[in-house]
């Protein structure tokens, strides 16, 4: 029933988005530009050195590929929905959503899609395939772990976004914070081991982008130890639980726009 509901929601969201298809060609170029802007700096850096913090060019490209997948998910699904939610809190439109029988957080998370971001997904797939072609073939266990970590990481990032958005129930204007969050996510495009000290801890525990980008890449390379994998799952589950609690608290606080 849940999966049927997701399909229906995404279908309606897609139909809404596809009303504005005139910019298709332009969005393709923006997609190419996004991929190039993640890949080319790495190419320039590795033009001068063979290894950065123990990562080769191809291993770093694998991280970049996962970063593009993250960008596609955040820009294509998380950001449009939570942006609409903030607008709903401000205008009182959220009332209509709360009146529907399914869980409001669930519906609010799948109402909108930005299909243009599929280009990032395609870019990520191409970069990832190219990187893997030059690396030793990953083991089956590595692939499964990578998929699991990617999923856990995406869930953690989603939870974080919900957490930030929940603050808009109290302070309507802080929704700008999510742009700041977007800027922090940018740091996930490189292997996390290039960062030192508290920045690295920040990127794995607080804004856990490294879980989405570096850890799955490490799993594919066969360099991830079990401790890190467990830690990733713990962070993801923790983030989801905290965000759910915040959401419930926030709804209790919600008084609609006119009351």
């Amino acid at each position, binding site marked *: 029933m849940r999966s049927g509901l997701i399909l229906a929601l995404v279908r309606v969201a897609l139909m809404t988005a596809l009303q504005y298809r005139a910019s298709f060609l*332009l969005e393709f170029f923006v997609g190419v530009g996004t991929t190039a802007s993640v890949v080319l700096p790495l190419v320039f850096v590795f033009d001068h050195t063979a290894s950065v913090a123990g990562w080769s060019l191809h291993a770093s490209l694998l991280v970049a590929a996962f970063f593009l997948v993250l960008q596609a998910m955040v820009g294509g699904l998380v950001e449009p929905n939570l942006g609409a939610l903030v607008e709903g809190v401000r205008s009182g439109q959220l009332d209509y959503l709360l009146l529907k029988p399914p869980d409001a957080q669930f519906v609010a998370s799948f109402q909108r899609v930005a299909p243009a971001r599929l280009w990032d997904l395609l870019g990520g797939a191409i970069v990832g395939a190219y990187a893997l072609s030059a690396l030793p073939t990953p083991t089956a266990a590595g692939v499964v772990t990578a998929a699991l970590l990617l999923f856990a990481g995406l869930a953690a990032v989603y939870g974080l976004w919900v957490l930030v958005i929940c603050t808009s129930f109290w302070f309507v*204007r802080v929704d700008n914070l999510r*742009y700041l969050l977007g800027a922090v996510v940018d*740091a996930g495009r*490189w292997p996390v081991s*290039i960062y030192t000290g508290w920045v690295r801890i920040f990127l794995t525990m607080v804004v856990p982008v490294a879980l989405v980008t570096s850890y799955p890449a490490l799993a594919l390379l066969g360099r991830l130890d079990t401790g890190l994998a467990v830690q990733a799952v713990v962070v993801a589950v923790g983030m989801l639980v905290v965000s759910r609690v915040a959401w419930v608290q926030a709804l209790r606080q919600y008084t609609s726009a006119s009351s």
Partner: protein
Amino acid sequence: MIAAARAFPTLLRIAVAEMVAYRAEMVIWILTATLPLVMLALWNAASAGGPLDGFGQADFARYFAVTLLVRQLTGVWVLWELNQQIRTGALSPQLLRPMNPLWWQFAETIAAIPWRLLVLGPVLAGVALWRPEIVFVPTLAAAAGFAVSLVLALLVAWFVQCLFGILAFWFDQSLGLFQVWFFVWALLSGYVVPLPLLPTSVAAVATYLPFHASLGAPVEVLLGFAPVGPTLAIQAAWVAVLGAATYLTWNAGLRRYGAVGA
């Protein structure tokens, strides 16, 4: 023009008051432009084993700290304002005033600069705390060249955004076009890679392009690895060309403008 010059101090005062009203948003917008720090982290790790083409870890830290500063001081958002005003028709009441609305936009850009410095101060202090060796006192000549180059860079960035904004008179996807421009800009301006570290042939061409004129030029003048005279000349040429283009397209666009609701 004379009327606008006389009104400019007043415009500036209003713009500063507006910045104060939206200070929280301002801080957040300023802090979102931190890509130079992300790039610094990568180059820092890459040069841990020794300098790359003469760039050591301290050089990278200094380069990207100055880049962050220049990026903020030449920060412009007139494109988004123009785009929104032209699409919604909010431009119409502004056209009733006895001067070009771009003057008001320019006053807003200038008024943001003190805020940018205020927010950036702690960030730069953090970088300096991490690598104290980046602190340096420029020669008087380098400082003077930097000041001129910075103003020219701001004007290049400003006119480029005006041109993309003016496109909205004809075409409603100008924001997307600017995004494509931004990707090329980031690679060729020195924003993510210092120009001397680009492949030689690419760097040779990039020196003459408007991307470099709007960011890399002042950075390199201050750090002393670009010749001051030629760099300023290239920048001045771009200001003249882009300024003339802005003037002409603005007038042509106004003739085409059909305000919403009119």
